[in-house]
């Protein structure tokens, strides 16, 4: 356990030294600044438009617009976290194997699984910080500018974290036997598949097309990222939006609790595969 911790610390340290953290931080802050400006301008516009309308309608509009804007912001954050997770771990094992830096580490009295779990833990910590900064920042900006705070914020954040962890873990597992670029290709390919599957399911459910819904479910089983994201937006969705179904971020076909449990098991299973494959391979 101590060795896992040493390796997690090393992974964290490496990300700081290699300026991954700094780059993420600078671009993240830039993102939040632009987001804040955009949110403020739109908020003001909606408020001006609301002056000519009855109070209750104006408030509802303001609320819906804030919700929409926050969802858009969080959608970008979710994608950036996914990309961060994939980029962090795609070359983590493969790169160290091909460069040979892993050799002095693995010939120490440690288990091979310590290396996989240590890296995983380090990346998980980095992703948590990144998500907290970005999603936390976006939610705070929305709250400060419009007083809007979505319901179930914590639950939604946890789901977004799960989504990023899924991608990171999957990339780490691929990286235990594939070169970095191939891992990147596989991860983003699957992510894209899940994304389009999710949309087919959404649109299918509007027209009550069962086949389309099933296509979505199958792709969600293949890679549950999009399903988890949709569940996250559903958790934050306003009651009005659920009734009206008026924006691309409203969710019609809601991934169930079973899907969330499936995603957690998927993550654990992927981690087990990563450990096993790395355990058995020649370095």
């Amino acid at each position, binding site marked *: 356990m101590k*060795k896992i911790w*040493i*390796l997690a610390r*090393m992974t964290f*340290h*490496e990300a700081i*030294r*290699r300026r991954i953290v700094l780059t993420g931080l600078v671009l993240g802050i830039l993102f939040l600044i632009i987001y804040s400006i955009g949110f403020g301008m739109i908020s003001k516009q909606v408020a001006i438009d609301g002056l000519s309308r009855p109070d209750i309608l104006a408030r509802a509009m303001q609320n819906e617009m804030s919700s929409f804007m926050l969802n858009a912001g969080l959608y970008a954050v979710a994608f950036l976290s996914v990309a961060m997770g994939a980029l962090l771990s795609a070359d983590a094992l493969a790169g160290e194997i091909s*460069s*040979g*830096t892993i*050799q*002095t*580490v*693995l*010939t*120490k*009295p*440690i*288990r091979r699984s310590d290396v996989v779990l240590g890296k995983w833990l380090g990346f998980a910590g980095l992703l948590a910080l990144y998500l907290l900064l970005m999603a936390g920042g976006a939610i705070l900006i929305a709250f400060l500018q419009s007083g809007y705070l979505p319901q179930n914020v914590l639950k939604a954040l946890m789901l977004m974290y799960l989504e990023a962890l899924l991608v990171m873990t999957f990339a780490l597992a691929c990286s235990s036997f594939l070169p970095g670029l191939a891992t990147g290709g596989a991860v983003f390919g699957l992510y894209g598949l899940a994304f389009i599957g999710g949309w087919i399911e959404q649109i299918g459910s509007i027209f009550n097309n069962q086949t389309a819904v099933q296509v979505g479910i199958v792709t969600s089983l293949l890679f549950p990222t999009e399903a988890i994201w949709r569940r996250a937006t559903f958790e934050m969705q306003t009651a009005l939006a659920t009734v009206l179904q008026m924006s691309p971020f409203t969710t019609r076909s809601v991934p169930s609790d079973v899907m969330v449990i499936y995603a957690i098991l998927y993550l654990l299973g992927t981690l087990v595969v990563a450990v096993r494959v790395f355990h*058995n391979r*020649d*370095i």
Partner: protein
Amino acid sequence: MTVAAIETEALRKVFGDHAAVKGLTLQVSQGEVFGFLGPNGAGKTTSIKMLLGLVAPTSGKANLLGAPIGDRATLARIGFLPEHFRFQDWMTASEFLMLHGELLGMDMQALKKRRDELLERVGLAPFRNKQLRTFSKGMLQRIGLAQALLNHPALVFLDEPTSGLDPVGRRLVRDVVHELRNEGTCVFLNSHLLSEIEVTCDRVAFIRHGEVVRVLELATLNGNQSVVTIRASGWTSELVAQLEHWAHDIQFTGEQLTLTVNNEDSIPEINRFLVAQGVNVFAISPSRISLEDIFIETVGKDGGL
């Protein structure tokens, strides 16, 4: 009886349909400095990787310090400098040693002391807070060597430890190996620099196609065996036959004669004998048999390709 440092029996590794190591059977005693020689592609690095648990053997057995390979407690008593000395280059020299010491499970206080000692020993103390990415090849090899010695190992594997080093650095490695021998550490040295091997090793094994083809005590080599070339006229075949008193492997080609003596002291005696027999001696030139000669003789000029 003390256990062997390294003991392998028919250790074999097959990649696809290619046997990188056909069947390595080897015994290295504790405290011995052992050279592992062979042409490129002879399976030396794969053999070392199998011993260290980086590569799983297809078949065969091996023990390190009495325990089967892959035993974690044993790895805490082993040092390893890998071939291409690629390390975590974003770390400083000091951090690098601390990380590896921690992975060895060393006590913090002892580790810090050992780190300072080793940085001093390999001449990197002034660069302790520099990142490894700024290091030259030779400096990386030095820090790699320090890393291999952190735990006062009972057995050290050095895979091409001098390939990136200048003469000063090579001298350092040679001195360190001598110190290790004096401390009773077994050193397993894989190198192409035969002159290095010649001065540092007690015994060598020649590997070809992943099999030991010959094991040699270097003490016998460092005796006085020489190949002597004699240019003279007035030979008789009877005279040539009489030279067998001092020499063997006698070959006669026209005016020139080559023979091998076991002791260089025989050369003046041969000279006196020939002169006394009325042979006109123009030149006698001895040349020591080097490890290189034996290497070429053992693995062949094709290098085992």
